[in-house]
């Protein structure tokens, strides 16, 4: 089974993080939400693999409050 890469996979993580924040510069909260959604859709299409995407959806949701009906998330230690 293909697994979502969760070890560091970026040559320059700080550069990416900065670029991510810069992308949102000057946007309203609403516009930022739209831009984030577009980013997710672009990346998801690039990945394509349904199993990888399923894992990403699951991991993203882990440990977030209000997960009514959520999976058997591990206790936050």
């Amino acid at each position, binding site marked *: 089974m293909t697994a979502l890469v969760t070890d560091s996979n970026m040559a320059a993580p700080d550069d990416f993080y900065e670029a991510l924040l810069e992308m949102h510069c000057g946007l309203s909260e609403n516009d930022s*939400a*739209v831009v984030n*959604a*577009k980013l*997710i*859709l*672009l990346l998801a*299409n690039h990945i394509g693999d349904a199993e990888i995407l399923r894992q990403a959806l699951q991991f993203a949701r882990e440990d977030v409050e209000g997960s009514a009906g959520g999976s058997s998330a591990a206790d936050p230690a």
Partner: protein
Amino acid sequence: MSPAASALQMKTYANPVYEYRRVAEQDGATARRGVVVVGAGPVGLAAAIDLGQRGIPVLILDEDDTVSVGSRAICYAKRTLEILDRLHCGESVVDKGVRWNVGRVFDGAELAYRFDLLPESGHRRPAFVNLQQYHFEECLVRRAQELEGVALRWRHKVVAVASHADGVTLRVVTPEGEYALDCDWLIACDGARSPLRSMLGLDTEGQVFHDRFLIADIHMTSDFPTERWFWFNPPFHPGQSVLLHRQADNVWRIDFQLGWDADPELEKTPERILPRLRAMLGPDATFEIEWASVYSFQCRRMQRFRHQRVLFAGDCAHLVSPFGARGANSGIQDTDNLVWKLDLVLHGKAPEGLLDSYDAERIAAADENILNSTRSTDFITPKSAVSRTFRDAVLALARRYPFARRLVNSGRLSVPKVLDASPLNTPDCDRFAGAMVPGAPAADAPVEGPRGGWLLDYLGGDFCVLTFGEAPGATDIARLAAWPVGVRVVHVGAGAHAACTVLTDREGLAAARYDSASGACYLMRPDQHVVARWRKFDIDAVHAALGRATAREGTTP
């Protein structure tokens, strides 16, 4: 769908009035009937025509004396037209209706993308024909009236039903009083609010969507192309969606999303409808409202479609939102699936258990339709802020990037269910490519042959083997024909025996669509679905597959 209201006088159409007739049962006759159909809508009529063509006498009871009041269902899919061809009313529906293959989706005022539902040629029927439901029903009534064994009883309303292991008893009310009617089998096609379902204490399960829509059918001369146009958030109806379809006789269907808070009584009034139309069509457009209705919709189905000798088909068995045209189209596939099975059971050629496959196959189809319809609804009516954000993100991306166009969901338009999990199928033992898997509805292709220019003209009605490459020999052809469930042979290519139907595939499209370069033999069901296939014809393999396809595995078919 549940119309909250319909009003206004139609300008282009006057409903026919079918005559109520007194029948023998009202004067004490008690003859038991074989098959009774309740409901003379598109689904009930299709069922009765199919039965009539098979020489099975059938009675249709309808509480009304006319066809649909107002247009309602308008989009008839390719598969429905192919089924109607077998019922000899495809041509009249296509002639009266308007054909379309192309849809456009707009985001605001701008085109987000365009799609073609039938991008390849070599099919007799287009992706869709739009036709007002009343015209559609009239075509089917005319066909039913041609058939000797089909009796239509208008203003005969079923008011009580009792179901037994071996039949059904009905009480029927007419303008001249009541009578009782016994039958062996009852096909319930009495619509979304099915009185029969309620009288039998049966229910449907599913969900109601919190949104309301205004349907307006207008008469207008316009040079809009014959395409499906869908707007998300158009400038003339901000924040909501709008759908435009052309119908016959210059009647146009416009569907305005109103939101859950809209007042259905108020929204159906011309004072509310006209400004919406004016905003959309411009100050100079001339049009007249034909019919209008405000509705909300649901996705739900019965747990089972067969209850002893009562078989539910169409909207009474399953309901979907109108986005995708999966209502009437799936109902007609229901009866296409059901009637050949009932025919074999009635003639003792298959056990009653064959009808359980109607349940299995059409429930799988209903679930597929409900899934698609629910997903469309989630896109058209986002249920949360984040769901709206993603919807708007998809639309924005779709203008530039092809990948996002496949995420836009303004309705996934009706395609027939591939019955790939059917218990009637024989799994492949040979390797095949392409779409014609066991359970798939047969692909059409242009051919030359004795009875017409399309492959589907030669399939259906009864079982047949469709062979490419090496043809079966005379002895095998005779044996297949002599089985109680007889099997015809249709051969594509040269060198076949005169006892089978021989077709020429000049363009090679049949060969390509059936992946037959190295020879192929398909066993086709009476409803034109593939049920088994092999690289070479083998009579024992056909025998076994036919036994399985008629629910009498291991016995003589």
